[in-house]
C-alpha cells in the first residue's frame, strides 16, 4: 500500500472531527473520498499533509507512505515529503498562485526548493506543462491570464515535475466548467495509467467519483461508513447513507429519438 491511513483521529480540543479506522491508496489507484460538507474529508487531507496543526487540530493514529510513518515527522522532514512525494491540488487553483508573480516564478520556486538546479527546473517545468497539454509559454503569464482549468493543470504540472507519487486532490474540479472538468478527470486517469500515480480524490459529487475512481470511501461525520470498489458501492450501496447521497444526485432525463 502506497498511502495507508490507520486509526486516524483528528480533533479540535475534545471534539473529534475525523475518526478513520482504515483507508488506503495503492499504487496506480484512484480512491474517492466522498461525503457532505463537514464530513471530515478535507481535514483528512490536511492530516495527511501534516498541516492539521495549522488550523488548530491535533492528530492521532498512523499515516504511512510506502511503509514510512508520517505522523511523527518534524516539519523539516515533512517538507521533504510534501510536494516531492505527496502533492496536493485544491478546489480553487487561483489560491495556489500568487497573482503578482508569473506562473513560471511560482513553479520554479517549488522545484528549486526541492533541490533542482535552475536549468533542471526549467527543463522539468516545460516537460510537465506539455504533459498536462499546456504550452510551456504560458509560464510567462500571470495567473489572471489563464482560465481556471488551465491553472488547475499548472497546479497538477508542479506535482508532475516533482514526480510526486501520491496526489491529494481536494474537490479539484468543483469550480470548473463541465467540459474543463472532463479534461482534468481525463488527465488524472492518464497520470494513473502512464505514471502509476496514486490519487486520493475528495469530492461531494458522486457522479464524478463514479467516472473516475477505482475505489470509493463514503464519509459521514468523520467516519467512513462504507468503502469498496466504486462500481459496487455506487450501484449497490450497503449503507443507507450512501443510498441517500446517491438519491440526491440530479440526473439528466433525456428523451431519445428525433
Amino acid at each position, binding site marked *: 500500500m502506497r498511502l495507508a491511513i490507520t486509526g486516524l483521529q483528528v480533533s479540535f480540543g475534545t471534539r473529534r472531527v475525523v475518526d478513520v479506522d482504515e483507508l488506503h491508496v495503492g499504487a496506480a489507484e484512484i480512491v474517492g473520498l466522498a461525503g*457532505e*460538507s463537514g464530513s471530515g474529508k478535507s481535514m483528512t487531507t490536511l492530516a495527511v499533509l501534516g498541516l492539521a496543526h495549522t488550523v488548530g487540530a491535533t492528530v492521532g493514529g498512523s499515516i504511512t507512505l510506502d511503509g514510512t510513518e508520517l505522523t511523527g515527522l518534524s516539519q523539516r522532514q515533512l517538507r521533504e515529503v510534501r510536494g516531492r512525494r505527496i502533492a496536493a491540488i485544491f478546489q480553487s487553483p487561483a489560491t495556489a498562485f500568487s497573482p503578482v508573480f508569473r506562473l513560471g516564478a511560482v513553479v520554479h520556486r517549488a522545484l528549486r526548493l526541492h533541490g533542482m538546479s535552475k536549468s533542471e527546473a526549467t527543463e522539468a517545468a516545460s516537460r510537465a506543462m506539455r504533459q498536462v*497539454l*499546456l*504550452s510551456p*509559454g*504560458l509560464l510567462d503569464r500571470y495567473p489572471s491570464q489563464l*482560465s*481556471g*482549468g*488551465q491553472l488547475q*493543470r499548472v497546479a497538477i504540472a508542479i506535482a508532475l515535475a516533482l514526480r510526486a507519487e501520491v496526489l491529494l486532490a481536494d474537490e479539484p474540479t468543483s469550480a470548473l*466548467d*463541465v*467540459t*474543463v*472538468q*472532463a*479534461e482534468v*478527470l*481525463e488527465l488524472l486517469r492518464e497520470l494513473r495509467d502512464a505514471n502509476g500515480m496514486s490519487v486520493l480524490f475528495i469530492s*461531494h*459529487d*458522486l*457522479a*464524478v467519483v*463514479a*467516472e*473516475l475512481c477505482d475505489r470509493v470511501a463514503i464519509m459521514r461525520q468523520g467516519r467512513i461508513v462504507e468503502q469498496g470498489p*466504486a*462500481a459496487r458501492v*455506487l*450501484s449497490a450501496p450497503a449503507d443507507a447513507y450512501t443510498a*441517500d*447521497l*446517491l*438519491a*440526491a*444526485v*440530479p*440526473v*439528466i*432525463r*433525456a*428523451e*431519445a*429519438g*428525433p
Partner: protein
Amino acid sequence: MTAETGRDAGQPVSAVPARAGDPPEPSAALRPDSFVTGPWLLDISELAVRFGPVRAVDGVSLQLPPGPCGLGLVGESGSGKTTIGRAALRLVPTSAGIVRFAGKDIAGLRGKALQDYRRAAQIVFQDPDGVLDPRMRIGATIAEALVAHRMAGRRAAAEQARALLAEVGLDPAFAARYPHQLSGGQRQRVSIARALSVRPRLLVLDEPTSALDVRAQAAILALVTRLRAQRNLAYLLITHNLAIVSELCEQTAVLYLGRVAESGPTDALLGNPAHPYTRALRSAVPELDGPTAARVVLPGDAPDAANPPPGCVFHPRCPLAVDRCRAEVPALRAVRPGRLAACHRAEEVLASSSASPGRAPASTAEGSPPGSTAAAPPA
C-alpha cells in the same frame, strides 16, 4: 432608509404572533398586476451587451411565458449566460436589442413602473453570503426588502419574514439568528425567501446550487420545484449543470460565446442534440453509471469574445467543421418543431444523435483545426 428600517426590523421577533406554516396567499393588491400581460412574461429580442471590445452577448433572443415555467441557460464560463440574466433585470447596460417584461420595454421604465418591475423581477445568486449582511439577523434581512418596497410595515414585515422562512422549509425561529449560524444550504434558502418576499413573477436563479454539496443541492432543487407551482413562478435558471436544467426547466438554451447555439424543450435537446456543442457538453457530464463510452472532447478553450473567429464561432473546436463553417455564420433556424439550432450540419447531427445518442458522426478529414491540441489562447 432601507438599511435603517432593515436593522430596526431586527427587534425581537418573538413578540410577533406566530403564523408559521401558514404562508400568506398572494393577495391581489400585492400582485404587480399593473403590468400589461402579454403572451410572454419576458421577451428578449436581439439582445447585445458589449464590455469594451468584448461581445459578451451577441444577438440573443429568448422568450419566457408566465409561470410556472423554467428556461435554462447553459454554457461554459464566458458564454454570456450570466450577462443575459443581468440584462433581463436591467443590471447591465445593453448595446442593442430590447428586453420586454410583461410587454413593456424595460429600458423605458421610470418611476413607479420601474419600482414595480424591480419588485416583480428578483435574482438569487450563487453565493448567498453576498446577499446576507453578516451583521443583520436573518429576519431583518428578509423584512428589509418588504419595507423597502413599502409592502409592509416593520411589524408586519417581521411577521411575514417568519412565514417566509417556514415556506422555504426553515424554522421560523431562524429569524433571530445571524447568517454565520446557518449552513450554506440554509443561507441559500434565506436568500430565496428574501427574493420571494416581494412576490416576484420572474426569478433569475444564477447558479443557485453550485456552491452547495449534493444533498443541500437536492433540497434546493426540490424547494424550487415546490415554489414554482405554489407561486406561479417563471424563472431563468443559469447553470453549467445539465442535470439541473433537466430537473427544473421545460426549455433550455445552450449558449456559446454570447450566442444561442441551440434551444428547445430540455428533454429533447439533451436526448438528441442538434448542435455539436450541445453534444460535447452532454457527453462531458459525469454520470453515476460510470465512464461514458463516447466522449466528445473539445480541443482548446472557448475563443476570445473580443475577437471571435469568422464564420461559426464554434468552428475552431468543432469536430464536424467544414469549409462552409469557417466562412459563413450559421443562422439560428428551426430544425424540428419547437427547436432551433445554429449549425450548418444540424440535420446530420440530429440524425446521428438519434441513431446512437452521444456518438459523433464520422469526422471529416479536415475536422481537426491546426494547433487545436494546444490549449493556449490566442496571444
